[in-house]
């Protein structure tokens, strides 16, 4: 027993512990910083520990967010694909530039075909990425595949840039025997250990604090083996998800623990039917970062070069290499427009004008903008475009029909991976299900499952 505990307390605590010391209503004490700074204290500054840098003022002024300038949006090229950032120097090869373009093209072609497949009832659900291919592909291209990624659901381009194939995507969409999710997740809930992308889950924003924790793990692992190259965690999410409590939790904990995590928000103007005016009243999401003490930037999400450049610099900042400091979180708000419906279960013309969407399709999107850039650079032309579209479509359709023909995973999969091993309860339930399937064979069609009822 600690000798510093008062004897009177001990006697009482023997029977029941005093809560007075530990109730949540007890004010938290955090004076150590204040004490350290007492020596350098000046009369015009606060002694209160909560804001030691603050000065006193005699002007009674409420801080109005409108007094701040609206945060500018970084772009490298204009909507004609002409470089406007004169300091910009492309740091990747022509081949890589073309690859970025075809990755985006691949996503958009997959979207078209899968949307139709869902309409025909061949897959149960789908979500397209139209208008946001540049954010996913651009950010991914500036990172290493070793950097650990967490996504929301509209970022298949991120995986594809890392090497996710059409076969991988189709296996997941059809929940066939090759689907690593073993037929448990809805379509577009992709994940890959090889590509370091954690499996997507439907609850919004839950992955934000995960990314902070993962980043802290990466930081600790690098500390214990300094010869390994330092890694960051990257987390993508939409502006609607940023209203969740997990956004707040994640930004705050990432900042206080110095986590090398890059948060990227796709601000596409809508969360299903909810326009941003109903989502927040501040200057987008980017203006919040300063409140958490997090470096941030707003970029043009239709400009893949701007997204890539910002992500590259952000990674250096995350690791502290660019400013010689310590690891820390960084935030990018990428502005875009959700050209498509929210999902196959949504008709967005119920809440926005068709003409608004058509305008956006015509005016600007990341694919046509980058195509113009490539054409200006002499790297692309109509013939190449036709050929690329044809070959992508061919490859995709091949993967599509092969995936559709595959068996579904075995039924046993439904009971596994709940715990490391099947518990006695789960074993009993497996046997009970098998018994039902055997005694009522006409009530179930098990033909699509690998091994039928025999896996149980």
């Amino acid at each position: 027993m600690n000798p510093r505990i008062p004897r009177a307390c001990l006697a009482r605590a023997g029977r029941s512990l005093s809560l007075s010391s530990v109730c949540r209503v007890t004010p938290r004490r955090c004076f150590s910083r204040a004490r350290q700074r007492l020596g350098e204290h000046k009369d015009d500054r606060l002694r209160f520990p909560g804001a030691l840098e603050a000065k006193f003022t005699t002007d009674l002024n409420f801080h109005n967010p409108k007094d701040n300038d609206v945060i500018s949006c970084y772009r490298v090229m204009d909507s004609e694909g002409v470089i406007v950032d004169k300091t910009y120097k492309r740091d990747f090869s022509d081949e890589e530039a073309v690859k970025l373009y075809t990755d985006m093209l691949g996503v958009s072609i997959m979207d078209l075909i899968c949307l139709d497949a869902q309409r025909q009832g061949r897959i149960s659900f789908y979500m397209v990425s139209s208008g946001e291919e540049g954010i996913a592909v651009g950010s991914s291209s500036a990172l290493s595949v070793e950097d650990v990624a967490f996504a929301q659901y509209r970022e298949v381009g991120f995986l594809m840039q890392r090497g996710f194939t059409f076969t991988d995507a189709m296996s997941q969409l059809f929940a066939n025997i090759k689907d690593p999710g073993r037929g448990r997740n809805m379509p577009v809930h992709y994940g890959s250990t090889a590509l370091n992308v954690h499996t997507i889950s439907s609850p919004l924003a839950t992955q934000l604090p995960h990314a902070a924790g993962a980043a802290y793990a990466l930081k600790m692992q690098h500390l214990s083996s300094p010869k390994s190259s330092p890694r960051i965690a990257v987390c993508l999410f939409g502006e609607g998800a940023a209203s969740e409590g997990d956004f707040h939790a994640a930004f705050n904990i990432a900042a206080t623990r110095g986590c090398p995590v890059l948060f990227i928000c796709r601000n596409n103007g809508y969360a299903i039917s909810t326009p941003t005016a109903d989502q927040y009243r501040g200057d987008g999401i980017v203006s919040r970062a300063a409140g958490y003490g997090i470096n941030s930037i707003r970029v043009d999400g239709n400009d893949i070069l701007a997204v890539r450049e910002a992500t590259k610099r952000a990674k250096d900042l995350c690791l502290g290499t660019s400013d010689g400091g310590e690891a820390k979180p960084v935030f990018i708000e990428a502005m875009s427009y959700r050209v498509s419906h929210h999902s196959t279960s949504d008709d967005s013309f119920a809440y926005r004008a068709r003409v608004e969407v058509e305008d956006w399709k015509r005016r600007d999107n990341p694919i046509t903008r980058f195509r113009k850039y490539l054409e200006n650079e002499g790297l692309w032309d109509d013939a190449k475009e036709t050929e690329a579209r044809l070959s992508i479509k061919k490859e995709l359709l091949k993967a599509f029909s092969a995936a559709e023909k595959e068996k579904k995973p075995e039924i046993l999969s439904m009971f596994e991976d709940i715990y490391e091993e099947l518990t006695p309860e789960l074993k009993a339930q497996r046997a009970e299900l098998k018994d039902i399937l055997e005694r009522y064979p006409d009530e179930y069609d098990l033909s699509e499952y690998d091994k039928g009822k025999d896996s149980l």
Partner: protein
Amino acid sequence: MKSLRIIRPTAQVLRAVTSSASSTATGRQYSTSPPNARLNIPTDFSTTPILSHSSQSALRNPELSAEVRNSTTKRMNLFQAINDALSTALATDDSVLLFGEDVAFGGVFRCSMNLSQNFGSDRVFNTPLTEQGILGFGIGLAAEGMRPVAEIQFADYVYPAFDQLVNEAAKYRYRDGTNGRGVGGLTVRMPCGGVGHGALYHSQSPESLFTHIPGLRVIMPRGPIQAKGLLLAAIASNDPCIFMEPKALYRAAVEQVPVSSYTLPLSSAEILKPGSDVTVISYGHPLYTCSAAIEHIEKDLGLSVELIDLRTVYPWDKETVLKSVRKTGRCVVVHESMINAGIGAEVAAAIQEDKETFLRLEAPVKRCAGWSIHMPLLYEKLNIPDVARVYDSIKQVTEY
């Protein structure tokens, strides 16, 4: 030691107020029993057979390895045993991290005392005050191969983190499938249960809410030996574990605890005391109440009562329970938390559902638990099952 500086004047003021404002009746009601009470007498933790008061009894446990059984013990209370387990885990595995609100200075219940100093502020640290953040952060750490031990300051405050527990921690491995990632390294500790004056938000026992979530292991120790062995098992487990610590036992329960590192099996119940006429099933703090009630009723009615500690409430050890009830034919389940949809409901249903056990039942299964109310400040003693209620429950099932 900041909090203790605050306690001292508060405690003195409290004593002064109670002794001057009223006579001994109200002043003592808090800690003593009514003058004629025979059953509802406070637990004497220094003599209860639940705890190992000697080295020999502590080391006799066949669940311990021969090496541990040949080692030494040290007198510890529950918070010290937890501190010892955390210290052992941090020392033996670099991937173990400990964090939560106020853990750096030692924790509001002293469970993490000296750990930040000994293992560094990178591994034992305070988080901002956000339960969803603490668990989300822990899940991210575990998903990248660490073994985080997250602390929720009171079980009453776990609800902001419910989404992270239910939808994320519990489902992580399932949805990742053959990708093979999970958050099995995660252990979530939280003080739970009544403490005499915790009222609505410092008394709750939400274990049954967690037992409705496939994927989580839910554990509650009854004393220091278990706290150390089960906590080390939870940290080593590759399933996410909820480790609930009865806060009233932190200082009260003291026993001889093996000094070496050891684990106790998860999802395995323990027969605390064999018997042949009635089976009493409980876990955590009420085991002391059950033990006292059994002592009285065995004397009064000449019964032989078997007492079972579930230890892990999910996935629970159905086999040990069913085997016992088949033998005795009578069963009482005791817990602090609300009766409706509590652990007792599951245990009772499993007993009647098992064909063989159903045929051996001589009386309906009796649940003796908290009423279907919130924990009210003034009425805690009338809400948590006490010796009289457990005694009467056993009497009811024997007289049926």
